[in-house]
């Protein structure tokens, strides 16, 4: 096994967490190497200019690695869901929707509010300055002054266009007397930081070949590399090695081009492989000292997986909505039901996002709800009536951190390097089922309010299997906390058991909130990486993790 020259920090994973951490530490002058199992995605690699762009989005640009099956993907052993992830430089920011809301103050205080989920070890107010730093790094479009959120710094650009679709949805929310607000998005409505404004092509789910959407390949990596960081692509991490004292010594990785194994030594190891990949790597790093996996003596690694409870209600109206134009998700958000009201029959809350429907083929195929144009003689009649006349109400409900919703190692499936695949088990708790059902009813009221002539509900249920979500958000499996018995990391993302091992990705979230998580993941990582930077001299030699 070839050993590379030791560095100050080795980071595994190059998505939101890995990119932000690498940039901050490299800009401080530290020697940082990032290992990424995939490669770069060039603008011309995206399918946006190909006539078969919609077919590609469902095949080799599928959000699900089990469908996509690229050489750099690893299989996921699960019957419970279809996780979204991208294995390449930028991680899942290469093909996400860049929806960029913040968590709200109560999201950090669920232990206080009802006790069925933990309090975070810090508050919204503690994190707020880091949201602002991260927003400046990615560039966020939005409209300031939402009464449903605490005041904060201005957005970098004005909001993206609402178009007729947004205006019709706003009319419906107004009729119902509910809150709505333009959704903050990490997609530029104006030129910013050398990147162009969005031109509303409507294919965000295959990434962005213009650089208008905050893919870490265009926001963070050029700056990190300029600062001296080394990004090693096609380098698949296999395990973390430790010494006799229990400190991490570095990462064993496989060169996917040759199949050969190498060792990258470092004083500090940071994992940022997402809520499935990070616990997988820890569980695969067994030793005499850590027989259940690294940093897992309390059996917390891999547990409390959260994705959000999801449903989609699509509705079609007589007036044209241009549903194929503009960012896919989301024109606006309704936070009327975001706070807990136990009189609704559940704890926690939900938001409703107004989204678009992609191109003509996808709309005929059923768009996000499965309302498919019939085959046969009535096909064109249906298409004329529905195409560009629909909007999508996406229900995003908070899901609880359930110990049995978890990532373990598959006993039967391995990836192309012989590393055990992650096995994922997930069931929606009855409380969270109620949230989704409540949200569906509210979306049906919206359909009524806008005079929809057709409505279709997608509960993400498959025959004989029940709820089987697309699992866009991979959260909670190595959570931070104040209690070493019930968490994996301390409030500064340092694992309780291995003092020079840090986790900086969606795994760390103690609760899921009822909105997209990437802005919060970014803010948490900025906070943790700046702390690591500012205390690096001590933390690189630490023999014990810092108490909460």
């Amino acid at each position, binding site marked *: 096994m070839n050993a590379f020259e030791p560095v100050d920090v080795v980071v595994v994973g190059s998505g939101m967490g890995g990119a932000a951490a690498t940039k901050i530490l490299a800009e401080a002058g530290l020697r940082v190497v990032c290992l990424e199992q995939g490669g770069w995605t060039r603008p011309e690699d995206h399918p*946006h*200019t190909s*006539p078969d*762009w*919609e*077919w590609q989005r*469902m095949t*080799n640009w599928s959000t699900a690695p089990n469908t*996509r*099956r690229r050489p750099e993907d690893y299989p996921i052993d699960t019957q419970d869901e279809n996780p979204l992830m991208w294995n390449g430089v930028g991680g899942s920011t290469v093909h996400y929707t860049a929806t960029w809301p913040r968590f709200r*103050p*109560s999201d950090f*205080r669920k*232990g*206080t*509010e*009802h*006790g*069925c*989920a933990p*309090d975070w070890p810090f508050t919204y107010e503690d994190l707020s300055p880091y949201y602002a730093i991260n927003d400046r790094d990615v560039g966020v479009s939005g*409209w300031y002054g939402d*009464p449903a*959120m*605490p005041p904060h710094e201005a957005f970098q650009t*004005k*909001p993206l*266009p609402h*178009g007729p679709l947004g*205006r019709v949805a*706003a009319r419906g929310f*107004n009729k119902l*007397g509910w809150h*709505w607000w333009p959704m903050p998005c990490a997609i530029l*409505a104006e030129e910013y930081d050398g990147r162009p404004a969005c*031109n*509303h*092509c*409507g294919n965000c789910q295959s990434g962005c070949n*213009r650089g208008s959407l905050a893919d870490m390949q265009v926001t963070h990596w050029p700056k990190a590399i300029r600062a001296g960081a080394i990004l090693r692509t096609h380098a698949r991490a296999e395990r973390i090695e430790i010494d006799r004292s229990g400190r991490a010594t570095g990462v064993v990785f496989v060169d996917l081009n040759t199949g050969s194994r190498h060792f990258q030594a470092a004083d500090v190891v940071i994992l940022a492989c997402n809520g499935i990949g990070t616990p997988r790597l820890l569980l695969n790093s067994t030793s005499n000292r850590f027989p259940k996996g690294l940093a897992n003596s309390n059996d917390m690694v891999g547990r409390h997986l959260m994705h959000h409870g999801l449903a989609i209600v699509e509705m079609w109206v007589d007036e044209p909505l*241009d549903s194929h*134009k503009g960012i896919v998700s989301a024109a606006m958000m309704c936070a009327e039901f*975001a*706070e807990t009201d*136990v009189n609704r*029959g*559940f704890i926690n809350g939900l938001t409703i996002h107004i989204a678009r429907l992609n191109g*003509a*083929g996808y709309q*005929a*195929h059923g768009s996000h709800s499965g309302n*498919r144009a019939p*085959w*046969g003689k009535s096909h064109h009649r249906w*298409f004329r009536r529905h*195409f*560009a006349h629909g909007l999508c109400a996406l229900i995003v409900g908070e899901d609880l951190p*359930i110990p049995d919703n978890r990532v373990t190692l598959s006993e039967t499936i391995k990836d192309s390097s012989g590393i055990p695949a992650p096995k994922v088990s997930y069931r929606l*708790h009855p409380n969270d089922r109620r949230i989704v059902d409540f949200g569906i009813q509210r979306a049906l009221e919206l359909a009524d309010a806008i005079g929809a002539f057709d409505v279709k509900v997608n509960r993400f249920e498959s025959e004989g299997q029940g709820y089987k979500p697309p699992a866009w958000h991979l959260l909670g499996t190595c959570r931070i906390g*104040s209690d070493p018995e019930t968490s994996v990391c301390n409030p500064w993302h340092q694992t309780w058991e291995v003092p020079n091992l840090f986790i900086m990705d969606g795994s760390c979230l103690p609760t899921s909130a009822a909105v997209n998580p990437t802005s919060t993941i970014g803010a948490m990582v900025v906070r943790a990486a700046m702390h690591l930077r500012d205390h690096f001299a001590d933390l690189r030699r630490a023999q014990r993790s810092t108490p909460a």
Partner: protein
Amino acid sequence: MTTRHRPPRAQPQKHLRQVAEDLEAFVDTLIPGDALFPSASQAGVHQVLAERLRVYRTDSIDQLISTLANNGSSFKACSPQQRVRVVRRLERSEPEFFAFILSAVYLAYYQHPLVVRAIRWLGHEYNDAPQPAGYSMPVFDPQVDAPKHGRGFYKKTHEIKRLDTSKLETLLGDLPRYPNSADGQP
């Protein structure tokens, strides 16, 4: 595009012609033409379907053709009513395979330039592909688009207190309980 290629097997010319004719009749049963829209075969969908079946469902073209055969006669030889019955039978008996076919057919159809042109004739601005042109949209106009309702609220951190969830105990009884960080008590 990532594919799992397999060299096509040698087939007698006559057989290949029959397969092509059956596939044309099949896709036209799924998407017939009308005064504005071309039929699926006019948009070349049968060729794309054959390719997608070959790449993603090895050997399934023969399976499809034999399933479409109606009492020994080829699909093309069936009457329009018989074709609809045969397709309905396929839809019921092999729903997963049929769903794949519909995906392949619908997405192939709507990528064809003739179909894109028909969509434009309906009055929609619609591109052959999302880029490079993108779409024009009216910019966010604060006078029209900014919310003026004043609705919305959030609980401030210091306002968050323990809620009475006793009515939900049956629902929440199986969950672990965590301390209230305000007083350290569960």
